Every structure is written in C-alpha cells, then in structure tokens.
C-alpha cells in the first residue's frame, strides 16, 4: 500500500494518535504510516512506543510518552509537537475498560474512566483548535467510541457513559470546528480482539463469551478493521462527513 496514492492517501499529513502502543491505536498508527501519513504516537507506555516505531513504514514519525489523565498539560505538549509541523488531525484511541457493578462504582473508579475516555478527548480538541497547532488547510478528528455507547450491558455503566459522551461531544465539536474546515467523527467498534478486550472478557462466563461472538454476524473483528474506518474518515474520502458515527462492528448493532 505504501507509495500508492489511492483514495485513502494521507500523504505527508501529520496525525497524532493516542493509545498508540496497543490495540486499535497501534493498528491505526501502522495503517496510517502505510498510507504515507506522518504519525505522532502518544501513549503512557514508553517501551510500547519504542516497539511500535519498528512497525511503522514511511518516515517523519514522532512519539511522546504522556499521561492523558493529566488533562491540563495536554494542550501544552500538543503545542510543542506542532512546533515541528502543524497537525492535520488526531485520533483518540486511548481508553480504559471498566466492568463493575454499580455498587462498586465509586466516584474514584468512574472518574478515571471518564477522564481517560472522554475528558482527554475534549482536552485534545482544545489543544488542536489553536491556529498554531492545526494545519490551516483543514483537518479531521476521530474519536474511538464503542457500540457500548448505543447498547447496554450489566457492569458497563461507566464505560457506556464515557463512550456515549464522545458521540455527544463529537456532534457539537463538528459544528464548532466546521468553519475552520475541521471535521469531527466517531468510529464505534464492536468487540475486537485487543488486549483491552482480553482483560474485559477474562471476567466473563464462557457462555457470555460465546454469546458475544455469536452476536457479531461477521464474527469478531480485528483492530485493523477499525483502523480502516479511521483512515476513511481522516482521508479526503471523508471530506463531507462530519458529526457522524461510523460503526464498525460486524453487524453487532444491526441484529
């Protein structure tokens, strides 16, 4: 795919990806690099970022080890990154899962979920909207939400809340950023085989795991399937798409 100027080409566009060291974030970085984007990989896992660097094609990539829970510092380090070249967009793939019955869901527990999954997305948008940070020609923002934004599950209160909030956030940001030519969308994945899914499904009964698998008419997906949806929204293919949710779920929410 590298070097081919297909419709998904992101040639020379600088795109920041959070949660870059694993799962969807990592697959996104790898795919974007093959589409000739210049990737800025952000994660709290420094050694994971080093491992990622070996996997990236193309050139001009950068990485940053940062804790997204430190919301106030996000706009600052985004400005530092943009000093080396403006950002065309960002993908917020960082997130934390949470399977807890409500009786165990203390503010400390659910706030961590909200901070990382939702508030960090807003902080990144705040950093991005500065004229010195973003590409003056326009841009594209993608939040990785979840089918859990639209369906419920016992124990998923905090996670569902955090992901549904991303849908609301993206719609209003889409309107606020449209005059600057910046598009804002969500990709809502179903259950895919990632380390996070492994941690979540480890808590399930075998019957529940079997049901989740059966509930996806196309079977369980991969992080790369989700990354392709992200690339569609980042590239010019998505030039008239804003405020939308692209659900990539193997038919999970259709049945």
């Amino acid at each position: 795919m590298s070097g081919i100027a297909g419709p998904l080409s992101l040639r020379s566009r600088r795109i920041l990806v959070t949660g870059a060291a694993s799962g969807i974030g990592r697959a996104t970085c790898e795919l974007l690099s093959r589409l000739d984007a210049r990737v800025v990989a952000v994660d709290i896992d420094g050694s994971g970022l080093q491992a990622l660097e070996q996997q990236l094609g193309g050139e001009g990539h950068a990485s940053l080890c940062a804790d997204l829970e430190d919301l106030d510092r996000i706009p600052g380090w985004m400005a530092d990154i943009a000093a080396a070249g403006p950002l065309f967009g960002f993908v917020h793939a960082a997130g934390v899962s949470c399977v807890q019955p409500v009786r165990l869901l203390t503010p400390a527990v659910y706030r961590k979920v909200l901070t990382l999954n939702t508030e960090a997305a807003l902080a990144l948008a705040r950093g991005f909207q500065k004229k010195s940070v973003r590409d003056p020609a326009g841009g594209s923002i993608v939040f990785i939400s979840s089918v859990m934004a639209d369906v419920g599950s016992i124990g998923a209160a905090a996670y569902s809340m955090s992901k549904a909030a991303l849908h609301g956030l993206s719609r209003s940001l889409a309107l606020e950023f449209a005059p600057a030519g910046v598009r804002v969308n969500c990709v809502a994945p179903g259950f895919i085989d990632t380390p996070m899914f492994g941690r979540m499904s480890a808590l399930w009964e075998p019957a529940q795991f079997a049901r989740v698998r059966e509930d996806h008419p196309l079977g369980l997906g991969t992080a790369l399937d989700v990354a392709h949806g992200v690339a569609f929204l980042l590239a010019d293919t998505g030039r008239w798409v804003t405020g939308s949710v692209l659900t990539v779920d193997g038919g999970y929410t259709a049945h």
Partner: protein
Amino acid sequence: MEVTTFTLITGASSGVGREVARSLSRSRRLILHGRDPARLGETRDLCERPNEHLLWSLELCPVEAIDASLVALIHDQRLAIDGFVHCAGTLKVEPLRLLERATAQEIMDVNFMSALEILRLLVRRKTNGKHLRGVVFISSTASEFGARGFGAYCASKGALDAFMRAAAVELAPQVRVNSVLPGATRTAMTETMLSDAALRQRMEADYPLGLGEPGDIAAAVEFLLSDGARWITGQQLVVDGGRTVNITA
C-alpha cells in the same frame, strides 16, 4: 477458472449514481442501470474503460417487471454479480392532503421495493450463484428525520434502511449490506430545489460544510464495498456535511 464479476449500479444515468459509476469503474466492471439508454451511454463514456461495462435499461416501477428482465440479462450474458449499489431514487414533495396514493406507491417502488426485488434475485443460487459480496443502498438523512411534504420519501428511505439491517443479519457473513445517508448534494434531482435562491441560501446555511457533491457520496460507497470495510455491515453511514447534527442554523 476465475469468473469475471460485475457490480450493478441502479440509477446510474445521473447524479450520485453516475458519480458512483465513474469512481467504481476505476477498479470494477459495471452493469449500469437506468431508464434512458442514451443517458446511460453518456455515463458509460464517463467511465474508465467504457467498453468493459454493460447497460441495463428498465423502469423500476412497476417492480413486477424487474424479475424477468434482470434474470434474462444475467443468463444471456452469463454474468456473475458481486456488488450491488442501489442509487435509483425519486423525490416528489407533496403535502399529505394533496398526495395521491399512486405517487406514494411509485416513490416506495423506486426507492425501496426495487432494491428488495433486486437483492432477492441476486442471492438466488440459480440466478447469481453465491457471487454476491457487497451491497450499498443510497438512503437519505430523510430516513432519520421528518420534513414537510416528505412523508412518502421518508417512509421509503426508512423502509430501505430497515430492510438493509435485516438483510445484513440474514446474509452475513457472505454478503455485507450497508446504507449511505447523504444530505443534499448538487444533482439534477435537487436542482429545482436549489434554483430557488431563498431556499438555496437557507440550505447552504443548514450545512456546516456547505452543500455536497455526488463525489463525496461515491467515496463512501467505494469504501463500504472495499476490503477495508470487511467488518462493517448493517450500518447507516451519514454523509451530510454535518446537516443532521446542526440545530444552530
């Protein structure tokens, strides 16, 4: 022996359908459907490698005529169809008190029933084997939102999307079925609406990214048919420049 497969595009003689044909012709052989053979020929001339594409001229209303015509086309030319994009659509804005049943029926037939009829035939083994892989319906944001005078049109697009989800579940994993929900793009169908200066101004204000082009919709169709979308089925993809999230206009 490898079979040469085709993608069927209805409503290919103008607007979104013509643009979908142009962009898909870069990578696929096409069956271009439309009512008017002359305009279909114009679409074919706009395609890459025009000689590789076939024309299928037929009125989709009444739907009863589709069966014999499509089956004959497939059998006569020994075609294998792996993609189906339903772009055919008709829009008549009529207040409910003036709407005639025949008009409503025609809108339902062209926008929805013909898609069901064609998909039903394309998954029949004796007609098309097991060749079908990807289906995209051009729906509308009218599937999700109401507008004055749009009763039959909204109903037809709502039915199309409900059918899309059911077909996606039933035909998985061999066939993926999705909808694209465009807002108003500049086409012949919307030309009369857009020629009214006041209405046009209001519509442009409604669209945060401005009015769309048929190519914006074609890009989404091409993506949904591609391997990059191999885990996407049963979904409505809104491509509307932010229109339906915009309540500030």
